[in-house]
């Protein structure tokens, strides 16, 4: 049993060396074989396997160490942990080989997700909506709409968007909070939305005329179909 575990660990560590070379040794991070760059040295140190796995999966808050869960396959994360454990002074793994030849498949996203966050567009859904931890939470939560359709996106009303007047300037505004004499609102004049804090008494509000179609206008209806499909899949998760 133990022997089998050791063999599995050794095999994993070899795979982990490759993953480490591409995801951990790069740039200013942990350096070749954990020799240290900006990120801490990993070579020659004793780590607890459970601790390492947690750090690799979740990252370290307030540092440059990201969580890799969901970005790198789970078995690769376990493999990289086995590799890092070998850097503690035990058996050295073989030198990492160059990996990931051009053309190797990147993690596949739903086309709708790519459209939602399409960086080439000036304004995309993610400019105002937060889903899966990305974007800006100005607009409503879209991750709980199991029946959303492209038509819903096209025709979306925005009943909460008012017309604010401040210092002679009229603009579409979405109020977030009113507290201690200050009103926090999203200014939707142009994307991205700006979260502004204004003295409550000096802002007046009137009926909104802003339409969601202005923001969604960069998408064709076929693309909106794909986005709706993506949102429906989120609601089912």
């Amino acid at each position, binding site marked *: 049993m133990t022997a089998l575990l050791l063999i599995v660990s050794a095999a994993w560590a070899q795979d982990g060396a490759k993953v480490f*070379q*591409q*995801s951990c*040794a*790069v*740039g*200013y*991070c942990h*350096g*070749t074989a954990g*020799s*240290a*760059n*900006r*990120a801490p*040295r990993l070579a020659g140190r004793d780590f607890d396997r459970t601790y390492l796995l947690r750090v690799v999966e*979740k*990252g*370290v*808050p*307030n*540092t*440059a*160490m*990201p*969580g890799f869960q969901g*970005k790198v396959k789970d078995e690769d994360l376990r493999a990289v942990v086995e590799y890092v454990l070998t850097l503690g002074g035990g058996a050295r793994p073989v030198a990492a080989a*160059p*990996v*990931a*030849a*051009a*053309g*190797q498949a*990147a*993690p596949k996203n739903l086309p709708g997700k790519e459209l939602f*966050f399409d*960086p*080439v567009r*000036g304004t995309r859904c*993610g400019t105002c909506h937060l889903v899966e*931890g*990305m*974007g*800006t939470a100005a607009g409503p939560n879209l991750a709980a709409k199991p029946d959303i359709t492209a038509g819903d996106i096209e025709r979306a009303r925005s009943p909460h968007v008012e017309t604010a007047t401040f210092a002679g*300037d009229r603009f579409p505004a979405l109020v977030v909070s009113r507290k201690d004499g200050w009103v926090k609102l999203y*200014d939707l*004049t*142009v*994307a*991205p*939305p*700006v*979260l*502004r*804090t204004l003295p409550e008494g000096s802002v007046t509000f009137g009926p909104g005329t802003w339409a969601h179609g202005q923001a969604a206008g960069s998408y064709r209806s076929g693309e909106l179909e794909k986005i709706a499909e993506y949102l429906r899949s989120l609601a089912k998760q």
Partner: protein
Amino acid sequence: MCAALAQDGGTRENWPHYGGRESAWRYSELSQINATNIKRLVPVWTFQTGDYMGGLQSTPLVIDGVMYVSTSRNRVFALDAASGKEQWQYVYTPQDSAGLIYGPWNRGVAVAGGLVYMGTIDNHVVALDQKTGRETWKVNVEDMKQCGCNITAAPLVVKDKVIVGVTGGDSAHRGYVTAYHAATGRLAWRFWTIPGPGEPGHETWEGDSWKHGGGSSWMTGSYDAALNLVYWSIGNPAADFWGGNRKGRNLYTDSVVALDADTGKLKWYHQQIPHDVWDFDTAYENVLVDLPVKGAMRKLLINVNKSGVTFVVDRTNGQVVNAFNLVKHFNWIKGVTETGELVGRNEPIVGQTMLICPAIGGGRSWNHAAFSPKSKLFYTTALEWCQNVTAQTEQAREGETYFGGAFVMKDPPGEKSYSHLDAIDPVTGKAAWTYRSKYPLLASVLATAGDLVFTGDPEGYFFALDARTGRKLWSHQTGSGNRGSSISYAVNGRQFIATPSGWGSAVAGLMAQLWPEAEHFRTGSSVVAYALAEESR
């Protein structure tokens, strides 16, 4: 004898901008503290920010007796600049602080029109009330998980706009420089550093490589009001060490771009390194100085490339006036011509391990040079170190690191790594003097009309050299390594010198491979202010 400089790029009572003035000289006209009396320079206050992880890379600003200083995690403090007493503080809460590819660190704020502007570790821009620190507006530039970028540089305020750059040159990302209306935070313009389909320069990218080609804008630009041009330096293409899928010149990476301040439209560009495969960003400060060249006054821009090659261009049109190398140890090219052409490229080869000099940390790091109109010298640090690079092919993953290789730091052939601060003629590159340092000099340089040049070292010594000879005149142990930018200012007729102290940064992290003791250099985060002892003024 050359004509007196018509240009006024020096600071006086205030230190209003990141680079001193918009021309980025980092030169103070104050001379109360000078080469004759500097022995009597004493610390008068210290301010501990408490936000020490990552050190303190900031340039404090001083306006009308108030100092504004930002820390690694975007805390901002307003201090009485004469006493160090806190007036207000602002604590930023990031949307999501896990997984910063760059940072956490911050290099400063901008102050104008009653607001204090700062870029954040999660790629937002905030504007704070100058009197109270209350947040007035906040905008998400782009989700940082998506771009793999954030903002570490100080913003640049030009007229009614605040302009910011982003990190991201080592991520699968397409860079940009963005301007917001200073009063409201509304988007004014965006300059994409990589041209999109149909735009001139798009043909310098192969296939879809432009979508993830880097071109970050991670330091602060300069501004020439007479020309109404903003000058921004654009970083390396991604992947850093491998360019096999992005054949072509890869515009506008590794270029200085001149943008119309009102529209963000490109006026001219000068690409320093076509198709970079060494991670040698054009990222650093653009020093705007008018100097005679072959008998005629020229409006010049001086930019030190990360490789240490320094380009002097005409800032009205981008034409190269001269180019020269700051470092002794280089083999990534054989040389550079006076017209700025690189000769004898030595590119990393996939799967092979090659010694490349200088190292990725640069022939110089981002810490600024200074220009003195009095000595007419340009004071810049330089780094002599190398690395073994192993390039590898890599698949772009949006927002994730995209490096195309790994490296191990190495000493140069036949010599221990070291650093130097040179006083050079900014047009010819000829050195007037050189100060040698055991460890990399990674703090900015400050020059003053008191014939002084200040900088600090990784061991925490903040020191002054004679601007004319390079002789060390004074030093003080600040408690932690220096990686920020010192300034000078005056309150009620008393001149102060202030420096951030607090060791950290990506490049600082590389040091331990060459100097094992550096792994244990202490971090910190404080501002130390100095003045002449009252009785000796």
